[in-house]
């Protein structure tokens, strides 16, 4: 393992640990560390909405800006003052969660392959976010705004790109014109609009993008910022005075750290640092990647078995499936088509396919859409083989996934374990098939809620098993014999404990009632002998 990979793996270990600590009070689905992108959107919208009001009351002249904001802060503290504080704190929160979002995606290796587009379109957004944020400090035109504007102008001038240096706009109080202020307002509104446009691009290649956090988390985050705005309202410093250098300033380090860095080093150093960081982020997807991030075979459509039901189209987390007219020529009938560049090779489409049921009588189980590296037909065969080999009083089948806690180690005399590409690949009918084939219980595992490596796999699986999503698990299946235990990588012990607990539960239930017979696939197929011997299946 190379040093960068080792650093990334170590960082991921620490990050996962942090996520798990927060899972305890929040629950995985509402864990802020698992909803950073969505929180970023929430904070952005708080900034945008509060900004609309602030703009409405802002005097956009150089002499009136400070006065209007100061009035808002003190005379209308209950509305304008609170909104001003919300505007600032939400902007701070936005940059915090955005940077953490970048870190998280990097640690999880989510920047290459089919995710390259989202990564690359996200990098410029960091620049937009900083330009938007820093520009906001200037509009108030207090000592802090003065310091930031002068420092930024000095930084930009170091590139010698302007015919007339920007710094000359801030040499004296008389030099700051209303026209310049209008330009600053334009930048502070225009760049966030570019940011929205960029965000739209950023989420183009994912379906059902989480552009708003789960409601309890959104309420908690908003209430936190509101409480902060009331407890520690943002106030202006003294009015800007370019005849003197501001004294000690309460700097907003989330955005303005670049200024002290520049004065401690040089403008060129800061340019070099930011350029190097940007280039590195851009190049990251193109650098040699660890083996586990290598591209996998993509989903394949088998037209003869695809009836154009659109379930894979609906369930694909990356909008990698389109629908085209079916080549059989039947009017209105459609065929799924995989878009290779977008396919994550997760297999969630195979799990959604109605033809992916093991109860089909075809000797060779070919589904409408399938994964070449783990075809559903091979999974059925493996399930039958392993079911036949199970021994003991409480036989359990475990369906896990390669992304979550390793389920292989659970396999034993009484436990048959399958590791799918993603748990979302599991057609729910396989659960019924396993129970009818002799299993006393089925345990389904995968990444924790909101932590699915392929975004929606665990959610779709849970909904399918609960009967809330197609293809659903039939209501006749005894739910007491099904256990869902989400567990991230590294939580193998917890998974083991969940299995032990489930086995006790199964043991208490006793043997399952005689179930409906498993249909014999067809006469050409060799009957699974061990299943026949078990007695639950009439052959």
């Amino acid at each position, binding site marked *: 393992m190379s040093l960068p990979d080792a650093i990334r793996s170590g960082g991921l270990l620490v990050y996962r640990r942090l996520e798990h600590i927060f899972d305890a009070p929040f629950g995985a689905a509402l864990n802020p560390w698992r909803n950073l992108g969505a929180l970023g959107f929430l904070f952005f919208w708080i900034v945008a909405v509060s900004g609309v009001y602030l703009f409405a009351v802002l005097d956009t002249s150089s002499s009136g800006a400070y006065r209007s904001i100061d009035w808002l802060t003190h005379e209308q503290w209950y509305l304008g003052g609170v909104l001003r504080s919300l505007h600032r704190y939400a902007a701070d929160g936005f940059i915090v969660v955005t940077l953490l979002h970048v870190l998280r995606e990097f640690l999880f290796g989510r920047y290459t392959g089919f995710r390259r587009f989202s990564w690359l379109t996200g990098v410029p957004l960091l620049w937009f976010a900083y330009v938007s944020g820093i520009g906001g400090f200037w509009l108030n035109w207090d000592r802090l705004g003065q310091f930031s504007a002068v420092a930024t102008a000095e930084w930009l001038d170091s590139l010698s790109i302007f015919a007339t240096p920007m710094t000359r706009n801030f040499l004296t109080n008389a030099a700051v014109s209303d026209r310049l202020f209008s330009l600053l307002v334009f930048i502070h509104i225009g760049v966030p609009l570019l940011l929205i446009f960029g965000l739209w691009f950023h989420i183009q290649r994912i379906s059902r993008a989480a552009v708003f956090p789960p409601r309890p988390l959104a309420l908690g985050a908003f209430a936190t910022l509101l409480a902060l705005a009331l407890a520690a309202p943002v106030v202006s410093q003294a009015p800007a005075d370019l005849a003197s*250098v501001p*004294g000690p300033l309460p700097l907003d380090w989330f955005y303005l750290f670049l200024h002290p860095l520049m004065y401690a080093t040089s403008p060129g150093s800061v340019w070099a640092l930011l350029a190097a960081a940007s280039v590195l982020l851009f190049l990251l997807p193109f650098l040699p990647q660890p083996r586990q991030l290598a591209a996998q075979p993509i989903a394949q459509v088998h037209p003869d078995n695809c009836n154009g039901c659109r379930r894979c189209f609906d369930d694909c987390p990356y909008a990698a499936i389109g629908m085209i007219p079916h080549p059989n020529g039947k009017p209105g009938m459609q065929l799924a088509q995989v878009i290779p560049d977008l396919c994550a090779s997760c297999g969630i489409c195979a799990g959604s396919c109605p033809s992916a049921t093991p109860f089909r009588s075809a000797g060779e189980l070919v589904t409408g859409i399938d994964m070449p590296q783990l075809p559903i037909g091979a999974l059925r065969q493996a399930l039958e083989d392993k079911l036949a080999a199970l021994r003991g009083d409480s036989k359990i089948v475990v369906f896990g996934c390669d992304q979550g806690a390793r389920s292989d180690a659970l396999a034993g005399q009484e436990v048959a374990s399958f590791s799918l590409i993603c748990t979302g690949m599991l057609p729910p009918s396989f659960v019924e098939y396993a129970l009818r084939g002799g299993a006393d219980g089925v345990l389904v595992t995968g990444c924790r809620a909101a932590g699915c490596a392929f975004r929606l796999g665990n959610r779709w699986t849970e909904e399918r098993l609960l009967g809330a999503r197609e293809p659903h698990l039939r209501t006749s299946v005894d739910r007491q014999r099904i256990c869902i235990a989400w567990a991230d990588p590294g939580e193998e012990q917890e998974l083991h404990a969940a299995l032990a607990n489930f086995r006790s539960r199964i043991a208490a239930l006793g043997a399952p009632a005689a179930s409906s017979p498993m249909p014999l696939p067809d006469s050409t197929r060799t009957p699974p002998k061990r299943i026949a011997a078990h007695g639950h299946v009439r052959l």
Partner: protein
Amino acid sequence: MAMFASKPLAWISQGLLYALFALGIATFSSWPKYQNLPPDQALIKLSFTHSGKRVADCTQRTPAELAKLPPNMRAPMQCPRERSPVSVEVDLDGAPIFRHVAEPSGLSRDGASTVYQRLQASAGEHRLAVRLKDNARSAGFDYSRSATLTLKPGQVLVIDFDAEKGEITFI
């Protein structure tokens, strides 16, 4: 998979973690304070954008030269575009603190020369001397100004060049 057994405990923990987030935001949005200039210092900003004199005089084209040109380009005077670099020197209390030659901007070196420099000085009385040269064909400096000034702590003194009046200004 670990979850708090009791909901109140989970809510209290959530509240504490939200409060921790708020504390982090509140803290680093205003702390630690930053002071750009030490309290006993003043700042001298030398800034001007000024076009130096042309490096050569305009010359009258001869009839033969004019005849060689297309009819629409037969201007009788030929003026070189290139301008002189602008040299500037700043002395504080007799000691040089800044020397710079600002090259003319533009691919044809026909644009303005620009200088921006921050110079720190201790607060108090100082003798400030500034010299500027904008003509490559002249000997010595074309403009100079010196003055005894009292700089207050934190004061910003701007040294500029007023091209219209042809003088160095202290603002």
